[in-house]
């Protein structure tokens, strides 16, 4: 149940203008945090800081070493936008396996067990029949699922998803959240989303990001509270949930 990751007094910039200021966040091993905030609020920037794609101008980031593993790939990551070449000659299963590339010693090949694991993950995402196809021949939602497999094949201790519901259909969206709940038994999860209505069923806590980060230690949040956090966003609810208050969903 211990701390696995800490952001301490972090500020970040891309050159001009401070995008994030004095951000503090501690992530424990069973956390499931929903990150919300307006467009351009700095959610993706926060994610990039966590996975090491951007260096903070101020503050410290600490990754606590989980027992018996390298901190190198302790984080699984699903980018909001993957900047890859759609025509790159690589098959679906090799994309998934590439998640393991950094932990393979130079000479070691992917083992049969690695491949089985990859296929199993693809099956869980409902796309195991596509394993040998070139990645460029998949639809947007199918690709998103492949990248999710790549993110979790290392069994990371922290999984960070930046808007995983772009591209995927509503059927898979529901599946996805169930998969995440299952994964949450063994890893902390951070999910960036605009769909606060749905996500609050699943997350345990909420962080509002709009230059500053306000941590809300519950999954029930009102629009009033959001405004107080400097995150003026509307809560779109699905079904019969009251307009302002999001209730905890029992599992």
């Amino acid at each position, binding site marked *: 149940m211990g701390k696995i990751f800490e952001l301490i007094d972090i500020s970040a910039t891309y050159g001009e203008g401070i995008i994030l200021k004095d951000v503090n966040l501690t992530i424990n091993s069973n956390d499931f945090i929903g990150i919300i905030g307006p467009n351009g609020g700095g959610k993706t920037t926060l994610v990039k800081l966590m996975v090491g794609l951007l260096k903070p101008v101020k503050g410290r980031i600490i990754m606590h070493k989980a027992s018996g593993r390298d901190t190198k790939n302790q*984080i699984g990551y699903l980018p909001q936008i993957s900047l890859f070449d759609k025509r*790159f000659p690589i098959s679906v299963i090799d994309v998934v396996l590439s998640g393991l590339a*950094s932990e393979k010693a130079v000479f070691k090949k992917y083992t049969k067990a690695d491949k089985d694991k990859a296929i199993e993950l693809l099956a869980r995402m409902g796309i195991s029949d596509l394993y040998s196809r070139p990645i460029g021949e998949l639809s947007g939602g199918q690709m998103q699922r492949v990248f999710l497999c790549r993110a979790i094949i290392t069994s990371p201790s922290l999984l960070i998803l930046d808007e995983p519901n772009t591209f995927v259909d509503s059927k898979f969206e529901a599946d996805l959240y169930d998969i995440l709940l299952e994964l949450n038994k063994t890893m902390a999860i951070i999910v960036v989303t605009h769909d606060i209505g749905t996500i609050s069923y699943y997350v345990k806590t909420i962080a509002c990001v709009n230059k500053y980060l306000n941590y809300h230690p519950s999954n029930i949040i009102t629009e009033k509270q959001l405004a107080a956090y400097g995150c003026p966003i509307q809560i779109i609810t699905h079904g019969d949930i009251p307009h302002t208050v999001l209730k905890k969903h029992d599992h």
Partner: protein
Amino acid sequence: MAEFIELISYSFFSKALLAALLASISCGIAGTYIVARRKVFIAGGITHASFGGIGMGYFFGINPMFGGAAFGLLSALGIEFISKKTEIREDSAIGIIWSFGMALGIIFIFLTPGYAPNLMTYLFGNILTVSNTDINFMIILCSLLILFFILFYRIILFISFDEEYAQSHKLPVNTFNYILIALVALVIVLNIRVIGIILVISYLTIPQSAANLLTRNFKHIIIYSVIFGVLGSITGLYISYIADLPSGAIIIFVFVVLYLAIWLLKYFHQKHRIQRQLK
């Protein structure tokens, strides 16, 4: 054909075949990398920039290939650096380096007193005049390339496919990018003797593109393009011998014919398959 086999036994011709084989292997590997990563224009820039070093070599009386290698490496690392670390747009930077290298080469060769070097050898290459030293350098480079790609294949593939994700795994992405582009530069410079500045890009792109028609697997593209490279070179050498035409140009002609043939085969195969599915 018997005549051709007899020909092979001449040392200059068997050396040419060996050079073609080594060119096919080195370009097969390096070319797959640059084609997959869409760095063909960078390869063009490196090729032409190295001409500056060749000219400088003539002027100062050192081996032109050393000058070429120095310029090739510097321009390769320079382009990689410019595209990553500065605001200058990559293709514009390549255009500048490309033409500046050529200009320097022409100036130096013009200034070289007395002996006017045979420019044509560098522009178009001459597979029949490849020296033992050239062959030895190429053997070393091929071994280095094969070793590097075997050792780091998975990491090269990972970085090439999605640099950002590889970076999030704390892999030394930039180091790999620099090493790989430096290897590409060495492949280009060593093959200039064989295929020439103007034609070297063909060995780096045509067999790979043909291979890419048949497979979307990085490793298989390497293997197929080495095979196509060898096939094309031998056929080209043979035709150039019997028709008494320049070997480099004929080899490329064969490459393109091979590419078109594969493209056509694939086209009709696919059409046939679709027809069957529609029934």
